């Protein structure tokens, strides 16, 4: 089962593929360090540029960006008390007080080593857990695959938290977009309105760029952000190899890794929840909880190890079942589709070199954080905070246009992307979750195809969808995911009243 993992290694350590990871990590740190930009947005902008690249080069860039950005978010969190990414909120609690005391450099070094530790643990979890899970899912037929898609959508809608009505609207919108174009079996035009450009359906890239890249650009231009650079100028940096012996946080790192991996696997949770849980748990176990919040380096370690430990693990359900655990994982699924790689059990059977190579790239990306982030972060990356946001916004607009235009070489796609961008901005402001839209687009067509196939096998009898134990278990899981949060809430309310 794991022999494919070893076979994939030589492909990953070629110069081009390895360079892609290095570039990805650096780009990820840069993106993560800029408040308002996120790994999701960076990967969305990157995906169209990867069309002409070899799959492993493209995936290496994505893996690097994801790892780098999760650490990069710590830079403004420590220096400005502005989390570069949502997952870095817990890093501000002790990171910023450390920076105020002139220990910003050490705080960033703790962050980078902890991030690397979490990322490595997460990559190992992906390597160990994904292959056996994919073997189980290989046994699935059309009705089981249909239920997996329904379960995936239900999980991301109901476990993401927030308003389930808004989550359902997002998912319905995503599934509706997935059916635009020619009918897969009869070839009927569906909602193309005579536009030849829409016959092949809506490219996931157009939707990703519109939903995830345009709203942050509007945010960059909407809110002027002035940074004083005070803490950047008194980092108190020493070489990372001298700082390493001062970091004795093994227990926190191991505990935080487990928390991050578990949260990553759960659909809908994500890095910020992992960081908060790990931070609270480490503080609870600390001998000096009173020092937390006033510049305790272990607090930075707890938050950063967990928010990086959910990176690769979020891909366990994404790669094996096609159900992403986080928004970034959903965007990464889009990146896989661009290269003709359909996430799910067949991916492991048909493209083992690529899928296992991708896992190695996650591991290398995490390891590279120490030399790349550790040596440069405390000096060069801190200066990124002074980049003018309007200029950054205008450059991203240009990159968005190039990326989307280059898919088919037509402006129609650009206008479509702007339309999705406007919808995405409204959804973002009204707190409609965006991941269900992406997942709806990815799983919608997949679910429809398998539903119709199952119905054909059952000669039109819908009971074919409930005729085996696997399907029934998946139905039960879907129901549990839908009613679980409300039961939990009622239980919590009763306990409060009692």
């Amino acid at each position, binding site marked *: 089962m794991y022999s494919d993992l070893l076979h994939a290694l030589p492909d990953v350590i070629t110069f081009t593929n390895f360079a892609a990871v290095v570039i990805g990590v650096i780009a990820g740190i840069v993106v993560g360090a800029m408040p308002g930009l996120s790994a999701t947005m960076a990967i969305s902008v990157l995906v169209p540029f990867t069309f*002409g690249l070899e799959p492993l080069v493209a995936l290496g860039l994505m893996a690097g960006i994801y790892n780098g950005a999760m650490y990069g978010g710590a830079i403004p969190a420590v220096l400005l008390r502005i989390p570069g990414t949502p997952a870095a909120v817990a890093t501000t609690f002790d990171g910023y007080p450390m920076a105020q005391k002139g220990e910003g450099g050490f705080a960033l070094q703790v962050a980078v080593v902890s991030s690397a530790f979490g990322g490595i643990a997460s990559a190992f979890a992906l390597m160990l857990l994904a292959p056996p899970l994919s073997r189980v899912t290989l046994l699935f037929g059309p009705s089981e695959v249909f239920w997996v898609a329904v379960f995936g959508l239900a999980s991301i809608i109901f476990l993401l938290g927030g308003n389930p*009505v*808004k989550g*359902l*609207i997002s998912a*319905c*919108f995503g*599934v*509706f977009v997935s*059916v635009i174009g020619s*009918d897969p*079996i*009869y070839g*009927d035009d*569906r*909602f193309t309105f005579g536009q030849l450009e829409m016959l092949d359906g809506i490219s996931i890239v157009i939707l990703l760029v519109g939903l995830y890249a*345009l709203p942050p*650009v*509007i945010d960059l*231009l*909407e*809110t*002027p952000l002035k940074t004083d650079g005070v803490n950047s100028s008194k980092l108190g940096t020493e070489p990372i190899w001298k700082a390493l012996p001062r970091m004795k946080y093994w227990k926190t790192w191991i505990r935080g890794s487990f928390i991050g991996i578990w949260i990553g696997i759960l659909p809908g949770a994500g890095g910020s929840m992992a960081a908060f849980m790990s931070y609270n748990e480490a503080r609870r176990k600390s001998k000096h909880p009173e020092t937390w919040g006033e510049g305790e380096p272990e607090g930075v370690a707890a938050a950063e190890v967990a928010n990086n430990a959910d990176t690769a693990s979020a891909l366990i359900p994404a790669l094996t079942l096609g159900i992403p655990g986080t928004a970034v994982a959903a965007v990464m699924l889009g990146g896989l589709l661009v290269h003709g790689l359909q996430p799910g059990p067949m991916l492991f059977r048909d493209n083992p070199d690529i899928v296992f190579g991708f896992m190695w790239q996650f591991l290398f990306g995490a390891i590279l954080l120490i030399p790349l982030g550790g040596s440069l972060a405390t000096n060069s990356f801190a200066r990124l905070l002074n980049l*003018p*946001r*309007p*200029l950054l*916004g*205008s*450059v991203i*607009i*240009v990159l968005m*246009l*190039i990326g989307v*235009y*280059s898919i088919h*070489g037509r*402006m129609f796609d*650009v*206008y479509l992307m*702007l339309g999705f*961008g*406007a919808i995405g*901005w*409204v959804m973002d*402001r*009204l707190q409609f979750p965006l991941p269900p839209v992406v997942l709806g687009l990815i799983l*919608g067509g997949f*679910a*429809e195809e398998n*539903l*119709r196939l199952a119905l054909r096998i059952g000669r039109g009898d819908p009971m074919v969808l409930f005729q085996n134990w696997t399907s029934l278990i998946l139905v039960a899981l879907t129901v549990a995911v839908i009613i679980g949060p409300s039961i939990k809430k009622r239980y919590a309310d009763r306990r409060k009243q009692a």
Partner: protein
Amino acid sequence: MPERRTSRLTRPETLTAIGIAVVAAGFLIPTYDLRAISSLLPAAMLIGLIVLSVFLLVSDQRKAGAGEDAAPMTKSPKRVVGAFLMIVGYALASDFIGFYASTAVTIPLVAWVFGYRSPVGLLIATVIVVGTIWAIFDFGMSQDFPTGRLWGR
């Protein structure tokens, strides 16, 4: 906090819910011309959207009835509208005038309008970005960009 809007129907979520219902209903019409099996999923999603938007509308109006104020969608509407218009304008300019000319104007213009006012910085940034795009995409990857419909190309 009392509702500050003149009409409860202008609350952002209410307007969005109405918009979703109207658009979804509009998209339902073409499904009548499709085969039943082809229209099954799209019709289910559109009907779902209509029903859910009614839920959203009712829940938002209940909030309004309870005196809950709806947060504004933006604190700087002019900047947001300006940003959208500039992005749309850039896309149209690329289409009709050509990519390089539009990009060379858009980068400094957007940055200037939204607060970065260093002429030297703008010049350097524009030259670097346009030059890098040309070197990587045009020269390196032979990528064609829009050359401008107005010039008949």
